[in-house]
């Protein structure tokens, strides 16, 4: 069972780069584990650490002024490989929401299947959020999944975001797709029998 997704208020971490692919989120050499643990340590590994394993101070995750449960990233976030380790590493690091103007399809599914909410905003909205957070890292943002709203009270803005009612319920109640499918197994078997007779 997934952790239930509750409304929360948090500051955000801005990574103002477009087309962040899953190889940047978690490089392939860290995919050798057979269990899901400790991936947060290697989130954005090659942007966070140099070859000698020293922290790269200029990268936002290493910048002390930024913290929080919301990652704000440039458009086309999560493109590339299907590795769910990307969603795991973001979640494990402590983020619960990623805000971008565009998400790659597989990443979006993986995120939702792990209780990580991808919030898609327009490019204009993203530019405003990015600028606001960079200018004032203490900016508080409210994530209200029930109302499908991302709010920045200090700026007096409210952005509505899309999510299917099915996925919304899954996140709020902590349901997973697997359990849903298990509950439909007899229909799946009927479908198999029908197909066998049809072809």
């Amino acid at each position: 069972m997934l952790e239930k997704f509750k409304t929360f208020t948090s500051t955000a971490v801005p990574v103002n780069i477009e087309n962040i692919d899953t190889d940047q989120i978690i490089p392939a050499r860290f995919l050798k584990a057979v269990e899901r643990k400790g991936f947060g340590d290697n989130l954005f590994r090659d942007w966070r650490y140099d070859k000698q394993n020293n922290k790269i101070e200029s990268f936002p995750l290493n910048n002390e002024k930024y913290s929080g449960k919301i990652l704000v990233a440039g458009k086309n976030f999560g493109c590339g490989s299907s590795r769910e380790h990307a969603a795991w590493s973001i979640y494990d690091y402590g983020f619960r929401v990623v805000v971008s103007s565009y998400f790659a399809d597989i990443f979006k599914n993986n995120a939702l299947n792990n209780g990580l909410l991808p919030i898609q905003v327009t490019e204009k909205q993203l530019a405003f959020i990015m600028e606001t957070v960079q200018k004032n890292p203490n900016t508080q943002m409210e994530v209200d999944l029930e109302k499908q709203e991302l709010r920045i009270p200090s700026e007096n803005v409210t952005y509505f975001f899309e999510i299917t009612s099915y996925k919304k319920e899954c996140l709020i109640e902590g349901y997973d797709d697997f359990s849903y499918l298990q509950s439909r197994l007899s229909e799946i078997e009927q479908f198999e029998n029908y197909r066998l007779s049809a072809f």
Partner: protein
Amino acid sequence: MKQTLFDKIWDAHVVKEIEDGPSVLYIDRHFIHEVTSPVAFGNLEKRGLKVFRPEQTIATMDHNVPTLNQHLPIHDELSRNQVNSLVENCKRHGVDLYGLGHDWQGIVHVIGPELGFTQPGMTIVCGDSHTSTHGAFGSVAFGIGTSEVEMVLGNQCILQNKPQKMRITIEGELSKAVTSKDVILYVISKISSSGGTGHFIEFDGSAIRSMSMEARMSLCNMSIECGARGGLIAPDETTFEYLKGKEHCPKGDDWDQAVENWKTLYTDEGAQFDTKYVFIAEDIAPMITYGTNPGMGMPIDGTVPVFDDASSQKALKYMGLNGGEKIEGNTIDYVFLGSCTNGRIEDFRQFTQLVKGHKKADNVTAWLVPGSKLVEKQIINEGLDVILKEAGFELRQPGCSACLAMNDDKIPAGKYAVSTSNRNFEGRQGPGSRTLLASPLVAAAAAITGKITDPRGMTSFQ
């Protein structure tokens, strides 16, 4: 109602639709490998379940295997552990495994088609984004995450929203030395690395129809690189000819019946697409990428574009290239022939054809990695290995290798690799590596001259 090929296959696999939610989609074929399956098996077992339809899943080892001395134990403990987990999981759940040492081992998207496990009209998934490859056979094939791998193992279904439909038509005849790899790099350079997001692509047009199955696979393989879930091509005589007699394909009367069914798999005249593009085959030159996503591609004889946005400038800086300069003639360090994009027999034939009678440049390290044991066997049967050896090249053993550099095949920091793989992301081929994506012909030309070279100028082509 007029339907696209994609609609016909998708709709025939919908078990149930959830209101304001995804569909329950039935999966015919499921491929698994060592990297994205262990957590799925682990969770399935935590739920106290077994694999629901083990005969519809096959497993191989590819991402994390060495490409030298495969008969020896893997020295890296984590890799060895991951590979051993797959062996144990397959044994416990009754899944067929073509692991190291098996005659059919290889990259999952190479072995599926060559064993006839991939067939027209099927839904096919794998925990790997390049599952789109199998669309070349007129199937709906796409990559999934590990949670979805677990869903398929446990229920033979996943929950999925139906993508939008895009058609990309390529009309005309491809020029000399232009391959399907150049076609897809050209398309992505035109529509961008996110231009296909939310879509499933159908490729058609005279240039597509005249492609071999190997060429169609390279094309569909990289559909994901423009953000699309997958790409597919209507099956035709070329498809049937390729599949006939393959291990897992129907035989005898069943074969004839299957072909009859497959012939109904095409887009009806007048069916609607959400997005359409038409490109002219004659406009396409041999391509090469200059940046850090597959959309940053250019004709090999062109100049690197000039950018004013920070993300693109960051990419050029990483690559050590300058806008406005020619790329041809730049010295390179590595050549990689292989991967699920270009690791098939036709790719090795093309590479060999071009290097025949030449010698590998001294400044180049070349890794030639067959996509599977069957491809390796055919290379030897056709005597390509002898020609390659005379030209100074050696073959390695099948696996994903330097495409994602999970094993030891890593391009060193700062070095340039002309690579027939599918991604040029920062560090994709090893931390700090600089990838130039290209066709096997462009890779061959670079391997001979040690520089980025237009294959149309090579003597083998005169």
